[in-house]
């Protein structure tokens, strides 16, 4: 088989059964890879109301047909399971689809070992780790690794197995202690953070997966593939935004983000932090802290950082990262200006195995609760929380990971902590239980709609509508045209650059962007190259030809785009069958009522009527019904008619809820 390895590895930890399943050509074509395989499997092998931590729940790792090849940027792994972090308006006990995408080197090793997907079910009776060496799969004791942080655990496993080229995905203490937003990390510091995949792994008593392979990936048209890969590499090399990304890492987004007033500050209460460029800008950061760049598999850009702090209080501290979202959510979001300290916090949170966005959200939410008087030291066991306090944050991060004292409450995630304490629900910035990233949803309305419609709870990486930002749009006008069509394109440029704060063009932009992004996830490549810095073009000129040349599958651009739509639909169906639809596709009241307090967009808030229109328009463009449920016709058109009965059951839950709400 070309491109793919054509095998799925199934491991049951309860009885130690290992099974290798062949994937049929039809299956491969239908679901393409990565996110597609995972979302399909997790949908079909779980059911409505299932507990995400149920031993029967699957945890999937998958790579795409381009993973581990010469294709540039091909180092991404998708991890998928039902998410313990997510919730719904129906109640915090409702869970839905969750996934996380990590860089690093794990997906390449999976391919060399001969697998497109690894599915783990069951629960081991004691801590274990899985050692995969080509066809040999071994479940080994991990008692001595239990409690170790990411870096120590990885090192220890590599020493035990005696080969530094083995790739290890592991959880930290946070995953072991079932912190709801625990992450899974490979290659020491490349994390799959969001939606609590580490928590699911911890619930299976699984500390790590170590993998090594000796197989080679073959191609249907090696010559054509190589030529195409060189072309894409050259394009990236010549792209100014790729060069900027290489030099500054994703921190290059700070300057731009603050200039247009979107960077989260003080628990996302506003999108502007005065003077942030001088404090957090990518150039300054690199001058002070950059030890060396870090690259994911086959990535010529290497936007990853490695921090070394030379002087001051934290002198000598070193760690992998930070990435822009980590730095922003653990920095400006908690109103800290101490960059060195924030770097340490990023390193510590990562090493404990927690999502840095949700960890930042937990800290900043508590700080705002203190400011508003919702909480006092009495509630937190004597710990004072004030804006920008790094020392306390470091201490609390450790308490969260170990579920000690007040940390035990925060480990439940913002929305559940607020419910448990009975306060501050109005200031949890979230959709479907997952906290926002660092872009203010009142300002960048494409991102805002993306948060609400995202199939894993609030996140920008599902509807990656970067084209709404002036810089991106200016440098990629032809993509705007492709995404919007002639009429909306005119609208877009008529109001430019104010279109960012208007909803008019956003349903269409989000619809296109979510598929554009999904294609990258399917083939196993990086979305950033076709999103935030865009040096590689769009899905159809960057990844589609590579996909065809590698696999030899005769799939037109339209068919590939439709496969992306199918994958988004199956994730949406996962929510639909829980009864989650229109009511969840929205923001907390704060963003409709409280205006932005500073920066270039002071006074801005979301208009409820416009929002309702945008929701309806988004559904219309997807051929979903008026409440946001996938219609039987659409399901049939996408070749997933089997979801219809589940969705009908979900609708019933939704209608019952509506009637109750009316009363």
């Amino acid at each position, binding site marked *: 088989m070309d491109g793919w390895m054509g095998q799925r590895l199934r491991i049951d930890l309860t009885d130690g059964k290992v099974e290798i399943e062949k994937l049929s050509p039809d299956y491969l074509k239908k679901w393409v890879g990565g996110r597609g395989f995972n979302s399909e499997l997790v949908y079909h092998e779980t059911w409505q109301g299932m507990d995400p931590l149920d031993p029967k729940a699957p945890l999937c790792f998958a790579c795409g047909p381009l993973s*581990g*090849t*010469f294709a*540039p940027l091909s*180092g991404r792994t998708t991890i998928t399971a039902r998410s313990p972090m997510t919730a719904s308006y129906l109640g915090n006990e409702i869970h839905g689809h969750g996934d996380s995408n990590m860089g690093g*080197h794990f997906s*390449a090793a999976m391919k*060399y070992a001969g697998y497109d997907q690894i599915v783990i079910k069951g629960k081991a009776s004691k801590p274990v780790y899985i050692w995969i060496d080509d066809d040999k799969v071994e479940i080994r004791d991990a008692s001595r690794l239990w409690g170790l942080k990411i*870096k120590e655990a*990885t*090192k220890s496993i590599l020493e035990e197995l005696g080969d*530094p*080229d083995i790739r290890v995905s592991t959880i930290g203490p946070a995953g072991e202690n079932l912190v709801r937003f625990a992450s899974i990390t490979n*290659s*020491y510091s490349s994390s799959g953070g969001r939606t609590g995949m580490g928590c699911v792994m911890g619930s299976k008593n699984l500390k790590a997966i170590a993998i090594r392979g*000796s*197989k*080679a*990936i*073959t*191609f249907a048209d*090696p*010559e054509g*593939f*190589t030529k195409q*890969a*060189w072309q894409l*590499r050259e394009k*990236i*090399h010549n792209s100014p935004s*790729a*060069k900027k990304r*290489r030099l500054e890492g994703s921190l290059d987004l700070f300057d731009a983000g603050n200039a247009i007033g979107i960077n989260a500050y003080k628990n996302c209460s506003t999108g502007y932090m005065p003077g942030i460029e001088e404090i957090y800008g990518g150039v300054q950061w690199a001058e002070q802290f950059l*030890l*060396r*760049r*870090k*690259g*994911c*598999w*086959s*990535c*010529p*850009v*290497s936007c*990853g950082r*490695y921090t070394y702090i030379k002087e001051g209080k934290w002198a000598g501290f*070193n760690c*992998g990262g930070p990435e822009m979202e980590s730095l922003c959510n653990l920095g400006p979001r908690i109103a800290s200006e101490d960059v060195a300290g924030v770097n340490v916090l990023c390193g510590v949170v990562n090493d404990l195995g927690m999502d840095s966005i949700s960890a930042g959200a937990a800290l900043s939410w508590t700080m705002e609760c203190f400011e508003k008087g919702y909480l006092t030291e009495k509630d937190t066991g004597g710990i004072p929380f004030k804006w920008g306090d790094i020392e306390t944050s470091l201490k609390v991060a450790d308490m969260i990971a170990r579920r000690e004292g007040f940390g035990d409450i925060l480990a439940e995630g913002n929305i559940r902590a607020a419910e448990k304490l009975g306060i501050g629900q109005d200031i949890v910035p979230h959709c479907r239980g997952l906290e926002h990233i660092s872009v203010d949803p009142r300002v960048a309305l494409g991102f805002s709609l993306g948060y609400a419609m995202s199939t894993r709870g609030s996140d920008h990486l599902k509807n990656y509508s970067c084209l709404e930002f002036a810089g991106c749009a200016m440098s990629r006008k032809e993509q705007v045209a492709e995404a919007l069509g002639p009429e909306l394109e005119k609208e877009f440029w008529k109001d430019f650059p104010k279109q960012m704060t208007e909803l008019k063009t956003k349903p269409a932009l989000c619809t296109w962007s979510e598929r554009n992004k999904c294609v990258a996830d399917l083939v196993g490549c990086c979305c950033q190259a076709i999103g935030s810095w865009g040096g590689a073009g769009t899905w159809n000129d960057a990844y589609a030809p590579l996909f065809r040349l590698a696999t030899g599958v005769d799939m037109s651009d339209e068919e590939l785009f439709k496969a992306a739509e199918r994958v988004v639909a199956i994730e949406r169906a996962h929510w639909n069958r829980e009864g989650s639809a229109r009511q969840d596709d929205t923001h907390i009241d704060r963003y409709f009522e409280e205006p932005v307090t500073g920066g270039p967009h002071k006074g801005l808030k979301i208009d409820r009527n416009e929002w309702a229109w945008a929701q309806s328009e988004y559904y219309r463009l997807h051929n979903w019904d008026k409440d946001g449920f996938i219609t039987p016709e659409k399901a049939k058109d996408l070749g997933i008619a089997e979801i219809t009965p589940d969705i009908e059951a979900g609708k019933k839950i939704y209608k019952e809820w509506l009637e109750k709400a009316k009363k």
Partner: protein
Amino acid sequence: MQQRKVIVIDPDKCTGCHSCEMACSIKHFAKCSPLLSRIQIQEFRDVNTFIPITCVACEDAPCIKVCPMGARIRLESGAVVTNEDVCLGCRACIYTCPFGAPVIDPENGKAMSCDLCNDDLLGPWCVKACTMQGALQFVDIEKCSKTVGRGFAYTLKEEYAPQAVQKEAEASFSFG
């Protein structure tokens, strides 16, 4: 000394992305696997340090001397490669190489090493794949020292410049 070009390695710029291995593997085998690559990245990932190891085509190559079959031969480009027709796969070249650079071809068990991509128009593919990082460069052999030394000199530049000015000031003072 023969006029030729060599690959210069600067581990400080290596990001551990393995693009060079992928380029080498696809060039020579039309497949992708790090085991098929003649350049190997040695990882010390816990301290984020990566050292690319490849055949540097020594002027006085020990592998040529040690090979019992005379299978290690020098090409016109200066590259030292294996004549697979006579190679036994005894691995003596690997043991004797100070860098451990030759790699065993997993498909036939014989030693293989960098052939500088046989005068391919693109030059060595690993170097080309590393263009953005610049950890690998392909330079004239007499420029090798200048290239390596310049990297070191660059780091000294900032520190050295002010001292130079000061020394000059002292000298002129004693003259006056």
